[in-house]
């Protein structure tokens, strides 16, 4: 008796007792769970790390094509062959961007955090300048990537991999943001014409799949425009992605606008502020603050959805991956490529969702 009492004083023992073995059924579930975790993780770790090839195969030869992969020499004995990722790393990150110009892409990758940090953290010193930089960034980035004025021009058909994924994701979000504010305000406008236009636009975009919008942009945009104007494929995709994102973001912002009490607007108007003044200085700052978590969630969605552009023939991260597995030298290494790409997407999206959670927590404490 006394022994069990002294045991229950142990912190770990009581934690296990409460969380893992609180009843017979729970105990069985725990044991089954441990078995499941052991099986899955041992298989996965062996495949990805312990039995995998990275640069050299088990004979110590450098892997230059799939015939050198250990698992193709001794079938069933070895794990993943990561050499495909390592050999084609340049393609995964830059697409077909010239190797000697890759520093430009690296510079853009390096500047990207500075462009985003101003939006993400509101207690940053010199935040105002970071925000200015955010709005300048698309132009700087485009100049660096595309070239012109001293830099060699690299056409968008040479862009690919993570570059296209990030380009569509980040530019789509940045361009959609102002558009979505206009749409959200328009949807709450008192003018019936503006309201109707905004409602039809938002509901239409939200009612159809992104892939049909991409098809439309790809096939129909050239039909709508005069002969001389030929937007390239990436730009067409960007138009579709931006319109798509703006409708979803507008709904997130509308939620924020609805949460602002009517008294705020009335108080602002009684002070003599015009509609635009009160919207800009009173309503929007409050509404945007509330709607940041749902906005981030739509951004996660968009970032994942950029993978759809492979269907219209662009080489985003997934598109490059698919090209890699259909390469005769590296054929049948599907799992390696897809697991790697999943991991890249997971890191970005999981990071964003953590940030969204952090914001939600912070906003909660602010209000109470």
């Amino acid at each position, binding site marked *: 008796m006394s022994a069990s009492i002294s045991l229950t004083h142990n912190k770990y023992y009581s934690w296990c007792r409460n969380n893992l073995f609180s009843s017979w059924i*729970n105990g069985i579930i725990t044991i089954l769970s441990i078995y499941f975790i052991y099986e899955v993780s041992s298989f996965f770790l062996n495949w990805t790390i312990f039995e995998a090839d990275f640069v050299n195969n088990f004979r110590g030869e450098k892997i230059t094509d799939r015939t050198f992969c250990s698992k193709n020499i001794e079938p069933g004995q070895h794990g993943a062959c990561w050499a495909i990722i390592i050999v084609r790393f340049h393609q995964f990150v830059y697409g077909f961007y010239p190797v000697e110009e890759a520093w430009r892409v690296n510079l853009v990758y390096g500047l990207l955090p500075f462009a985003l940090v101003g939006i993400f953290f509101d207690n940053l010193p010199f935040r105002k300048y970071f925000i200015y930089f955010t709005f300048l960034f698309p132009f700087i980035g485009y100049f660096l990537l595309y070239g012109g004025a001293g830099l060699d021009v690299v056409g968008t058909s040479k862009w690919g991999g993570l570059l296209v994924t990030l380009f569509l994701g980040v530019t789509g979000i940045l361009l959609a943001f102002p558009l979505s504010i206009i749409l959200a305000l328009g949807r709450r406008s008192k003018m019936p014409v503006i309201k109707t236009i905004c409602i039809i636009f938002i509901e239409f975009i939200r009612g159809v799949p992104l892939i049909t919008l991409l098809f439309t942009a790809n096939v129909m945009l050239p039909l709508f425009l005069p002969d001389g104007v030929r937007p390239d494929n990436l730009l067409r995709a960007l138009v579709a992605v931006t319109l798509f994102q703006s409708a979803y973001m507008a709904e997130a912002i509308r939620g924020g606008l609805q949460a602002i009490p009517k008294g705020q607007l009335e108080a602002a108007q009684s002070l003599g502020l015009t509609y635009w003044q009160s919207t800009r200085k009173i309503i929007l700052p409050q509404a945007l603050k509330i709607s940041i978590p749902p906005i981030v969630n739509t951004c996660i969605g968009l970032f994942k959805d950029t993978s759809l552009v492979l269907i219209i023939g662009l080489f985003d991260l997934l598109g490059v991956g698919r090209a890699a597995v259909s390469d005769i030298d590296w054929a049948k290494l599907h799992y390696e490529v897809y697991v790697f790409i999943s991991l890249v997407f997971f890191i970005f999206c999981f990071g964003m969702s953590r940030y969204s959670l952090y914001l939600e927590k912070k906003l909660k404490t602010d209000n109470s």
Partner: protein
Amino acid sequence: MSNSFLRKLIFDEKIRSLVVQTLIIGIFALIIYLITQQTAYNLEKRGIGTGFGFLNMSAGYDISIRLIPYTSESTHFRAYLVGLINTLMISICGCFLATILGFLVGIIRLSSNWLFRNIAYVYVEFTRNVPVLLQIILYYTILLYLPKIKQALVLFDTFYITNRGIYSPAPIFKDGFSIVAWSFVVAIIFSIFLKKYLKKKQEKSGNQYPIFYINSALIIFTPIIFYYIMDMPLDFDHPILKGFNFKGGMVVRPEFMGMLLGLSIYTAAFISETVRSGIISVSKGQREASQALGLKNNLVLRLIVIPQALRVIIPPLTSQYLNLTKNSSLGIAIGYADLVHGFGGISLNQTGKAIEIMSMVMVTYLTISLTISLFMNIYNKSVQFKGNA
């Protein structure tokens, strides 16, 4: 005079809004006019006519996954119907599977067992942070690595699992099976009335009746009895390996399975989150109060927690169904013959009628979306608070 008009234009709200709206209508009309002019010019130059006449022309391509008769001589409109049915089929199956999986995972995430609940958490985080397209392609690839037809995996001597699909016996309905089916329908309708009757009786007398068991027995045994009365009017056509392929039976293609797995596993992660937050939203006091009244655990769940949680769950669940339906358009990536793949892809390339075809596809998706919203709104109203709230 003109000065006061200008003043009114700027400061009178009514007139100003009228002017702004007229301007906007004008600009829109101008843009639409310019685009239509340009499009008509471009179409004429490329020699593409307009109109829906092409729908009656022969499509000239084959579709492997079809529920209604279709050959390569069928019309484009027929191809549209086949695609539409395939889209609806994958959406309905996907929503069904995703709901079951999502509710299961959502409940596991609230389990008191730390390990069990965190397995579910890892599943949710890993599936919802990876693009659904990538998952569809990945599961499809796994299915393609299943054994070849010659080395098919055999389950219970009836199911053959191969990389060309899962072959199973196909039911053959003989005369009299319709009576069995109707007896099933009648049993369901009868059980609904019985339930109402017994509920009323229970309210009057206070005696409880095992309604659930009575009705289950009714619904299960009526068709079985009729099945034997009608001398077993059901046969199975077993798939048999002949040469390089199976003859007879039914087959579920890997394209369909890949889509189903991808869509439902991905959407289930989101559904599980809405289920979890719905159940959490029911305050602990409700549960404790009902336990204090002496209700058993399953009754607490069925009568107190779930009805209240549903109010929170239904609206986000609707948008998940909508997302799944829209994501079903990704079938094109693995060759699942849905609306976008067949009609929106191959028909479009053959006829060049981009505007007609894309607008038909979009209007179809809009209709499906609106229909789902409508039905879910009706259902939502039935679970929301009633009375003078």
